[in-house]
């Protein structure tokens, strides 16, 4: 920037100096050429004037000798003798002036080397009366300088003739007195002047065919004929216009006309493709005009020289300024470069690299200190990062373990019950982070499938902990309790009782009675599962309720539904319906239902896999934002064929036991049960019914007890269903009796249920519509 400014200022100064020196040179040149023309003028005037004087001085001699025609030879000879610059002289008479001399008489003296010879000019071949030198002064009746002509045969000279008309006493012209003068000196002088005045060492070559690139002068006559010109063949052969009119440029033509008109001027024009200046001025007395042509390059040689010197000085100055700037900049930038090198070192990990030493106390020092600080900060930051990374690695390792543990909690061997043909279960859980807050679980106890799906608020480790607790509680509580609402309430009380982190979980809990397909369930704020019964696909009718962990003592209610043969229930967490694609569009319940509708007779595994694909197609690689859990349970049990179906109604009195025994025996007899088993069956049913009679009703309240006996042929099996309308009581949840205790010390029913379990293959309790239903089965 600085350099540019300096450069511009220098350039302007250079240009101004160049222009002014150019103008000065032009002015000076004009003066010089003017002087040159003046000198030439003086020389021409002096030379021609002397001739004129010589001629006029001899008129009297002619007149004195008019009577002696032959004496005229002496007259003209004397003129030459007395005037060395005159090379020829004639006295030419009018036709037949001297009758004895014939039509033409013109004594003529001329030089031949050092001697002077005479002769008579007029001949048949040279009729002088028609020559310019005679005819023009005669017609004009005044003295006349002829247009110069080139004497090729004689002295190789340019000549001109001065003619003076001679008058007799009556004023009539009787002859012309002439004197020839060589103009060779003019040519020579001008050539010398050309060389000297143009300050050029180049001598203009007489025969040069190319001359326009050097300064030269020329003279043209009244008819524009070249009298003096560096190119000799032009002299007398060509006129100014024979070249100028062939050029498209009209300036040169104009110059020619101005010269012929006797004017003076100074014009720039293109001369033979050379940019030139011409100075022209008339030569007095003759009507001739002199021109001096100087190529612009020559004219402005000095200006160009001055320009070149200034430019050279400018360049030198610029170089010096540049050098000084460079030096100063170097002092400033050198440490910067070294800093840059140090930073490069640091950037490739050499944090301990030495910074350049700064001795000055300027900005460079500050920069150095800043770098130093940066260097030490970097080192400590990197140490910090290292330990953070180590910690992170450790946590990640632990999380991987936690995930393994968490996943281990969930049943993940499928199919889980390969020996059962009445149930098909498949589940999947995909956590959004290493560990998740979703859970599912299921197991079978007493021909009941206990299952659950839950979603703990939040994700990650805290959620996974709640999830672990919830799952543990589900297993623990449901081991003794078959009522979903009761299980749910118990879990809720535990979770919300000590919920310091204010976390909660939605939960769906179901108990499917496998023999009957009766489904009892309880919901705690979880998404409604989908029931699939053939083409009928609908959300299960669920009460929303509140999620676990929000309120201690909340009373959950059990709901019931029937699952027919080949029906299915599909459970999921909101990670499915709220799966987002990149544009935050949710997968949604509609799409979920649609996906299910597209399936037909699919296994539980296939259903979940296809659902996973549908979700994957929806999110298209977008990051999973929530844990995703799915559980599908398909119920495949056909209702058994019945070969015997009988029932007995008794009242809740112990004396009804006899009727009961007879009923059992007759049933066993009918299906041909062997007597020992009959006795045991009687014992077990008696025990169960006795429990109902003794404990199901308040003292004094009478009610019916309904006993149903069913026999299925394949496999051959006997089933007793005992229904009562007493208070809810599930004997199956009672622990097996501690038989080491005395009979009186044992809790109610404890021994009975133990006995029943020993005899029967399975004991199943359900509370349906205010009824206690106890189902006892035995293979035959």
């Amino acid at each position: 920037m600085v350099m540019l400014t300096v450069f511009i200022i220098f350039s302007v100064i250079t240009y101004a100096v160049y222009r002014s020196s150019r103008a000065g040179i032009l002015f000076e040149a004009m003066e010089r050429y003017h002087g040159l023309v003046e000198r030439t003028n003086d020389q021409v005037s002096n030379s021609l004037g002397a001739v004129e004087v010589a001629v006029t001085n001899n008129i009297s001699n002619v007149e004195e000798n008019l009577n002696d025609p032959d004496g005229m030879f002496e007259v003209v000879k004397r003129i030459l003798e007395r005037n060395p610059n005159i090379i020829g002289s004639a006295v030419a008479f009018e036709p037949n002036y001297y009758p004895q001399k014939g039509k033409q008489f013109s004594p003529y003296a001329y030089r031949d080397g050092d001697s002077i010879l005479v002769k008579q000019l007029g001949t048949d071949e040279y009729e002088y009366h028609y020559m310019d030198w005679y005819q023009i002064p005669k017609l004009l009746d005044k003295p006349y300088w002829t247009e110069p002509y080139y004497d090729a045969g004689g002295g190789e000279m340019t000549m001109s003739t001065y003619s003076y008309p001679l008058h007799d006493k009556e004023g009539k012209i009787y002859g012309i007195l002439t004197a020839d003068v060589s103009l060779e000196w003019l040519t020579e002088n001008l050539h010398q002047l050309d060389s000297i005045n143009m300050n050029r060492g180049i001598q203009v070559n007489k025969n040069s065919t190319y001359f326009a690139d050097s300064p030269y002068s020329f003279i043209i006559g009244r008819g524009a004929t070249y009298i003096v010109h560096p190119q000799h063949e032009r002299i007398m052969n060509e006129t100014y216009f024979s070249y100028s009119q062939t050029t498209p440029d009209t300036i040169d033509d104009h110059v020619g006309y101005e010269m012929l008109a006797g004017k003076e001027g100074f014009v720039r024009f293109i001369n033979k493709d050379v940019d030139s200046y011409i100075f022209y001025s008339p030569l007095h007395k003759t009507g001739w005009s002199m021109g001096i042509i100087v190529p612009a390059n020559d004219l402005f040689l000095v200006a160009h020289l001055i320009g070149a010197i200034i430019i050279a000085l400018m360049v030198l100055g610029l170089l010096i300024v540049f050098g000084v700037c460079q030096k100063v900049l170097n002092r400033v930038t050198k440490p910067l470069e070294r800093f840059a090198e140090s930073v490069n070192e640091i950037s490739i990990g050499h944090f301990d690299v030495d910074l350049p030493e700064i001795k000055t106390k300027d900005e460079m020092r500050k920069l150095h200190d800043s770098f130093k600080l940066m260097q030490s900060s970097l080192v400590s930051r990197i140490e910090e990062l290292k330990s953070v990374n180590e910690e992170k690695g450790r946590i990640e390792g632990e999380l991987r373990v936690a995930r393994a543990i968490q996943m281990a909690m969930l049943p993940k061997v499928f199919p889980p019950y390969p020996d059962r043909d009445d149930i098909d279960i498949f589940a999947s859980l995909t956590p959004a982070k290493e560990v998740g807050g979703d859970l599912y679980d299921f197991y079978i106890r007493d021909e009941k499938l206990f299952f659950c799906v839950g979603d703990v608020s939040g994700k990650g480790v805290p959620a996974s902990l709640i999830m672990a607790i919830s799952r543990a509680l589900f297993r623990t509580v449901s081991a003794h309790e078959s009522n979903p609402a009761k299980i749910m309430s118990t879990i809720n009380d535990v979770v919300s009782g000590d919920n310091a982190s204010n976390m909660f979980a939605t939960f769906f809990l179901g108990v499917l009675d496998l023999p009957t397909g009766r489904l009892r369930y309880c919901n705690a704020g979880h998404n409604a599962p989908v029931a699939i019964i053939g083409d009928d696909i609908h959300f299960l009718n669920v009460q929303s309720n509140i999620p676990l962990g929000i309120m201690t003592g909340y009373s959950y209610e059990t709901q019931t539904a029937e699952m027919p043969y080949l029906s299915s229930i599909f459970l999921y967490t909101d990670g499915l319906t709220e799966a987002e694609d990149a544009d935050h569009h949710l997968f949604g319940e509609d799409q979920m239902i649609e996906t299910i509708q597209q399936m037909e007779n699919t296994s539980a595994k296939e259903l979940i896999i296809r659902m996973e694909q549908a979700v994957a197609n929806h999110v298209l690689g977008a990051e999973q934002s929530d844990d995703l859990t799915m559980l599908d349970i398909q119920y495949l049990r056909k209702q058994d064929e019945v070969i015997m179906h009988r029932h007995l109604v008794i009242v809740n009195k112990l004396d009804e036991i006899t009727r009961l025994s007879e009923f059992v025996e007759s049933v066993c007899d009918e299906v041909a049960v062997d007597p020992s088993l009959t006795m045991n069956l009687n014992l077990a049913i008696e025990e169960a019914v006795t429990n109902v009679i003794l404990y199901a009703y308040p003292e004094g309240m009478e009610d019916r007890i309904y006993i149903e006996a069913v026999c299925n042929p394949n496999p051959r099996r006997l089933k007793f269903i005992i229904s009562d309308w007493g208070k809810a009581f599930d004997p199956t949840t009672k622990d097996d009796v501690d038989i080491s205790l005395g009979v009186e010390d044992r809790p109610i029913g404890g021994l009975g249920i133990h006995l029943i379990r020993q005899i029967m293959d399975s004991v199943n309790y359900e509370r349906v519509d205010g009824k206690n239903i106890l189902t006892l089965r035995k293979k035959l």
Partner: protein
Amino acid sequence: MKKVLVFGLLLMTLGIKAQSLKTDEIVLTPSWQAQAEYAGIYVADVKGFYKDVGLNVRIQHPALSTSPIKYLKDGTAQVIVNHLLGALRETGNGFRMINVLQMSQNSTQVIVAHTPISQPKDLKGKRIGVWNSGFVELVYLMNEEHHLDMEFIPMVNNINLFISGAIDATIAMSYNEYYQLLMAGLRLGEDQVISLANVGYNIPEDGLYVTADYFRTHRDEVERIANATRKGWEWAAEHPEETLDIVMEATKKYGVKTNRPAQKWMLEKFLASMIENQEGKRTYVLDPSALDEANQMLLTMKAIQKRITYKQITEP
């Protein structure tokens, strides 16, 4: 100046004497000094067209103030270039000249004046320069017909008379002096120039002439020289640049001061004047109607007493 001319004349006289000894030599004298007006003749000479037909032709230019007819009369030349009008007048006066080749088909003469001359009457009483060597019959005729009372100043060769102001007007060949005037820096307006062809005096000019006697005795040579000259002109028309080289050589050889642009101008103008108006090409034949016109003019001028027939001027 005079010295060289005298020297030249001396040589010329000696030459004539020497050459007249050669019996088979034919001297051809153009009407004036060496210039492109005679390009066809120089070409025929330099390219050997004359030699090719067994002729030994020597070109000898006349003295500047002398008519070529004088050379024909005194036997210096056997063949000359002359204007039609001059040849007819001589024939009418008893010296029979035979036209063997007619180059020019049009008049190229113009009159140039210092003052405006849009029509002949503007020349009334003017001092006008005319060539001492002749070729100015048309100007005389115009002077007669228009009663111009011009003062005729006979002159030789150049334009200095006009430029110096010694004369008011001058006759000029459009192919020669007119160009020289332009080159001398005269800015001639259209109204300063009268072309004779445009004011009713379009008479063919240059033709090749021999005497009737010579024609009778050398008919074969005459035909050959006419044909070779014609061939020279045709070649010149086709090779203008090379022709100019030849012309410039001739001007140098015969000591004529001129330059190439001037000769180029002349060659072009002269070639143009050779085109016959009706036929649109070079015919080399005298047009009978042009002869009629020329006869009429000469009779008007009383330069001849009776009409010269076509046969008279073209056959011996």
